[in-house]
């Protein structure tokens, strides 16, 4: 079941310049519907003069109270700029939960790999894996140390590894050159980030024979599988990222 609900922004933080975390609670104060890690919401953008469509945003985190949901938003255009600048107390409308999500692995050795705002769905996934008794490793990549997002939060649920392009924190280089990627012993890699990064991570995982799931963020309008705008070319032909994804096994994608 999907819902279209009003939420209150109950607090707001900026984990790095150009990013905001909005903490949201239903305006009617009822519990959230069940949300799987990797699922997303479609957010209405209030007060935006030139944007028109909702914005698809990954669920960053669901607090253990089952009432409070976080969205990690990158200020990347007019729509997300407005979202980042909304004040605490404002109401916004969210359609949720959308898409399929990552499975929560309770057994297999799992590396979560996030780049930029792509770390968003991995935090909630890490919490649920940790609670399932399978604390994951998480490899976070960014251009530089100040753009590594939500390290304190990830530390609660995962063993955190980092890579920065300029070497200002952790491994000096991109995530695919980090020892965890090149020689770490894992059964599964779950990745979300910019498309070039995900393709590079997928290539390493494939070469090493590690199963790999990626979360795509193709541009979309409806989020419900109706507009057919967000399609990805897969082994099954064009499929909607919003309903068949956003999480795909790389074997389903024509990425070779």
């Amino acid at each position: 079941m999907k819902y279209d609900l009003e939420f209150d922004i109950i607090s707001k933080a900026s984990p790095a310049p150009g990013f905001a975390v909005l903490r949201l609670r239903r305006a009617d104060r009822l519990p959230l519907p069940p949300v799987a890690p990797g699922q997303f919401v479609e957010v209405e953008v209030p007060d935006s003069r030139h944007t028109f469509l909702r914005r698809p945003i990954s669920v960053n985190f669901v607090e253990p109270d089952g009432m409070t949901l976080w969205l990690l938003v990158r200020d990347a255009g007019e729509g997300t700029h407005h979202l980042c600048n909304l004040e605490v107390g404002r109401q916004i409308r969210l359609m949720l939960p959308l898409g399929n999500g990552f499975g929560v692995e309770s057994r297999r050795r799992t590396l979560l790999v996030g780049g930029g705002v792509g770390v968003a769905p991995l935090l909630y996934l890490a919490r649920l894996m940790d609670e399932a008794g399978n604390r994951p490793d998480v490899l976070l990549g960014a251009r530089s140390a100040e753009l590594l997002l939500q390290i304190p939060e990830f530390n609660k649920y995962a063993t955190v590894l980092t890579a920065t392009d300029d070497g200002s924190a952790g491994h000096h280089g991109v995530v695919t050159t980090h020892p965890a990627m090149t020689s770490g012993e894992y059964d599964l890699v779950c990745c979300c980030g910019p498309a070039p990064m995900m393709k590079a991570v997928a290539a390493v995982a494939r070469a090493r024979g590690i199963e790999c799931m990626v979360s795509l963020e193709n541009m979309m309008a409806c989020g419900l599988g109706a507009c057919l705008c967000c399609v990805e070319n897969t082994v099954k032909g064009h499929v909607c990222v919003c309903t068949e994804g956003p999480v795909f096994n790389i074997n389903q994608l024509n990425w070779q």
Partner: protein
Amino acid sequence: MTPDLSVRLGSLELQNPVLTASGTFGYGEEFADFVDLDSLGGFIVKGTTLAPREGNPYPRMAETPSGMLNAVGLQNKGVDYFIENIYPRLKERRSEVIVNVSGACVEDYAEVCHRLAALDKIHAVEVNISCPNVKHGGMAFGTTTAGASEVVTAVRKAWPRHLMVKLSPNVTDITEIARAAEGAGADSLSLINTMLGMAIDVERRRPMLSTITGGLSGPAVKPVAVRMVWQTSKAVKIPVVGLGGIRTGADALEFIMAGATAVQIGTANFLDPAATMNVIREMHDYCVRHGIADINSLRGII
């Protein structure tokens, strides 16, 4: 007072004038969590072709001021898939289900309609001679009177029930095309399909769409659509179905006052999955507020 919102569209009796526009509402069930599908006037399912189509490459969508461009290119699984897999679910619906039909050549349109004719719960087809996003067929038929007439004549022979023809706004005089479709046997006309448009990402110096051009929809096109509905409804005797940027009950009433018998909600479904329900409620509330007993009394008053 409970105002009467029912309208008659040729042989179709609609419980209210609100239909969903093809390609914006899937097969209805995608919206079932938000919309009481049985309370719609009807829904028009997405463009169906003879053979399955993968559509155009990604990216197929670009947001523009008060609207969006799309270049989906009629992705669908083909008419036989529809008949075998979709129709059995749709035929239980109380609302009218109208199938939007497209083709690369005249014979394709006729063959799709011929196969659909066996489905007795499909009381109408909407023939799309106005898709701007396919290389062959589509809008090519809808921009000349000869092309429109040729397709509608062929479909008329293959299709025994209500025949709606969806017109393109990308023409000099839409009333000429409208009259050609009417003369070839159309029972109603729906307008407007999307307007041909284009957007460029200046940072990357590339077109926003893989196809460079695409179809513009949303509130940005509404005034053009209202104007064309007004002109067309005065030029033909068959009923006109208005669409283009309708989001609210007031928007829908503009089209009705301009001469439309029914309306279609399209892009608004992407903004608000319950847009159709809001439009119906707001039209109802308008009639109550203005003491309108029958919505038909508002049609074509301008």
